[in-house]
């Protein structure tokens, strides 16, 4: 990030390469309950990203050494399908997926009422079917909808969203070129109803003003995505109590 200063990412008319404004998000579509075998599931399409999340449990935590006597543990497995990018990804767990699984689990633990299920485990599987930058945020959003669909008690939904900096300009929701050749990336997990931040990472450098602007963009986008999440959950059960 930041090592390719000669790549033009903003057009002369001020728009981005894909025609979006600097504070415009890629189109988002969410569907809940896509996997009948899972206790809860969701599919999120965000730009060219496609993520499917499945939730199983709560179930007894095995092996016993991972059990917590006072709360449930959230076991997240984030994985990118080998065909999700133009270059085939070697299947299996790697350093990156391990890191994203860990930060996603920590973000979800802050919203799930884990104290309701001592000694148990909630398994969250996130599969990225197509990747175009920002997959960890899409994965978090999908996991939140899947958790709600599974009936897991949460104090809020959590929305994953990212902003960044390209050509010294703060932009919302980086696409692949901006992610690869931009100067900074700021993915966050936002609790839309309380405005709390459950997860924040930053790659690259942002000044305090740029950081504040990026966060402003993130909150605005989170509110929009949250509406789509709620709509997806309601749509699944509309037509009466089910």
């Amino acid at each position, binding site marked *: 990030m930041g090592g390719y200063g000669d790549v033009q990412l903003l057009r002369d008319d001020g728009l981005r390469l894909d025609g979006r404004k600097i504070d415009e998000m890629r189109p988002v579509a969410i569907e809940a309950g896509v996997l009948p075998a899972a206790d809860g599931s969701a599919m999120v399409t965000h730009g060219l990203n496609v993520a499917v999340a499945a939730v199983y449990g*709560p179930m007894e935590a095995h092996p016993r050494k991972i059990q917590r006597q006072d709360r449930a543990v959230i076991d997240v497995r984030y994985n990118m399908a080998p065909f999700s990018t133009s270059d085939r990804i070697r299947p299996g767990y790697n350093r990156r997926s391990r890191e994203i699984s860990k930060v996603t689990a920590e973000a979800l633990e802050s919203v799930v009422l884990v104290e309701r299920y001592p000694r148990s485990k909630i398994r969250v599987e996130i599969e990225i079917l197509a990747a175009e930058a920002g997959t960890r945020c899409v994965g978090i959003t999908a996991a939140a909808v899947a958790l709600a*669909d599974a009936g897991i008690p949460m104090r809020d939904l959590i929305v994953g969203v990212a902003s960044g900096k390209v050509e010294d300009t703060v932009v919302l929701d980086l696409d692949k070129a901006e992610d690869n050749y931009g100067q900074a990336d700021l993915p966050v997990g936002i609790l839309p*109803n309380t405005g709390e931040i459950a997860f924040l990472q930053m790659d690259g450098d942002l000044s305090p003003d740029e950081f504040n602007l990026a966060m402003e963009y993130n909150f605005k986008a989170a509110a929009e995505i949250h509406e789509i999440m709620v709509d997806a959950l309601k749509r699944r059960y509309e037509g009466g*109590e*089910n």
Partner: protein
Amino acid sequence: MGWSVAQNGEKEMSNGQNGAELRLVTPGMAIGPLAGKRVGSGAIAQNDTIIATRLGWTKEFNNTVSVDPINSAYMPRSGDLIVAVVAEVRNNLWFMNINGPFQGLLPMSLAPWKVEFGAARQHMGIGDVVLARVQEVDECHNVVLTMKGVGLRRLNQGTVVNVPINHIDRLRGEGNATVQRLRDASDTRIIIGENGRVWIDGDAEGTAWARKAVALTEASGHKTTFEAELSALEQNAPKKGDA
């Protein structure tokens, strides 16, 4: 977002649940101001506001606001009548799959037979289905079952159908009216476990009809068209409702 504001999927509250409308809420959504109300299951109080913690329908009953979850895992409570499946056998106890997050434990002292140490397998093996009652549940979710009691036994015949936990009341009906109707129409024995397992026993034709009726109740039990749908199904019932 006040009490009177209608949201998507608003419905009239059924009789007996007086006082508020049904409204579909998602986790984190404000249900309304606390204003002296008590907070029931599926909701929490935060800054004088009642917040939903689950996806489900809001309900207000006796000044208590709660959310009836659309999906939920079976959480055993003492006294529940359940249909359990033997998952493991030890010398002096059985571990039972109770369709919940944790297995239940049936010690030989609470079995209906006199069991010698080491002879548990002679009475029940893995996969056997039993009708049991939850004896106790502690705060760490240790579940102890009992088979001592009237009607509690090993189920040697019949079939078991799974039903979502939140559809159990629908299947039972007001004062067990719906399930009794299914029993009469199909000439089968039907026992509804609180853990979402329904045991059906009868001849092949009756069992097949009862399974169909359970599926219909599960899908349409809350709709105004349910009565007509069930009556139509009863026309094809083995006993045609005259039992």
